[in-house]
């Protein structure tokens, strides 16, 4: 392999120097190297090309056309993505709007499994949950507590959360 690399001119100078030194001491390897070099030289001659310049210049007009088409395609793609996001937002917003204040059982019935027992009685209004972690009520209360430096009366622990990328710490109220 090294002999081939040498014949192909791919050896680093320092390695080529070492190899040369080795070849001067080992005539058999030197003969092999010479044989390889001769074969490569002959192959080079046999496949030699006479490169000629293209008869036609670069088709700049065609390239500009392609470039313009690509720009339009990119713009159309961006618009499609934005439109898709807007439509998705509208659909979700509309769904949220029409479901607001609707009884849970009534919401669950049409698409849900009719065999499952309703968890909430038909027609019953479900108040906004205060127990959901992300509920506005909870967040608002936490904010108020943080501002006032106090915690919920009677609660022994409080949640200390500096950053959303860190785990929240539970601290004891002193």
């Amino acid at each position, binding site marked *: 392999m090294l002999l081939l690399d040498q014949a192909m001119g*791919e050896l680093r100078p320092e390695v080529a120097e070492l190899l040369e030194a080795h070849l001067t001491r080992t005539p058999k390897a030197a003969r092999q190297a010479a044989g390889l070099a001769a074969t490569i030289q002959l192959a080079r001659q*046999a496949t030699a090309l006479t*490169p000629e310049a293209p008869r036609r210049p670069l088709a700049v007009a065609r390239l500009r056309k392609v*470039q313009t088409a690509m720009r339009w395609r990119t713009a159309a793609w961006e618009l499609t993505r934005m439109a898709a996001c807007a439509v998705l937002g509208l659909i979700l917003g509309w769904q949220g709007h029409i479901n607001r204040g609707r009884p849970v059982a009534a919401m669950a019935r049409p698409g849900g499994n009719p065999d499952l027992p309703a968890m909430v009685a038909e027609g019953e209004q479900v108040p906004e949950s205060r127990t959901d972690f992300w509920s506005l009520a909870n967040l608002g209360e936490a904010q108020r507590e943080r501002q006032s430096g106090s915690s919920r009366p009677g609660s022994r622990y409080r949640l200390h959360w500096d950053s959303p990328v860190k785990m929240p710490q539970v601290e004891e109220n002193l």
Partner: protein
Amino acid sequence: MNEGMEQLEQLYRETGPALLAFFRHQPALAGAAEDLLQDTFVRALQHRERLDGAVSRRAYLFGIARHVGLDALRRRKPLDELVEPPAAPATREDARLESMRAAITELPGPQRETLMLKLQHELSYEEIAEVLAIPVGTVRSRLHHAVLQLRQIMTGSNHDEN
């Protein structure tokens, strides 16, 4: 936009002849070599950011040219096979060169392709690896086997080069 086109035109002037020779050397593509050369640059423009980020633009263009050639071969109609191969050099050459050409055509396709990129187009191992999308070790191995086989054919003996 104009600057980009100027850069492409510069690349065309620099690598166009070599790429044209690359197409012309393949008998099935020789007739359409000029068109394929233009297609190569159109495709390069379509992936402009890759061309700009390529370690070797020359190698990248050879890679595209190779794919353009393969696509052309796939689409080729039977009539296209009638396209004449490139004319043989006018000078009278000795029999050893003819034997060597015959020996090279006997090589397995991947070895021949690798050898041609090295000998005809003077690409480095790394550039050939980029063109063919193979590891550098595979390039070396292919060249090694190709040269050994050529030597064996030309000398009619079995040499151990290791």
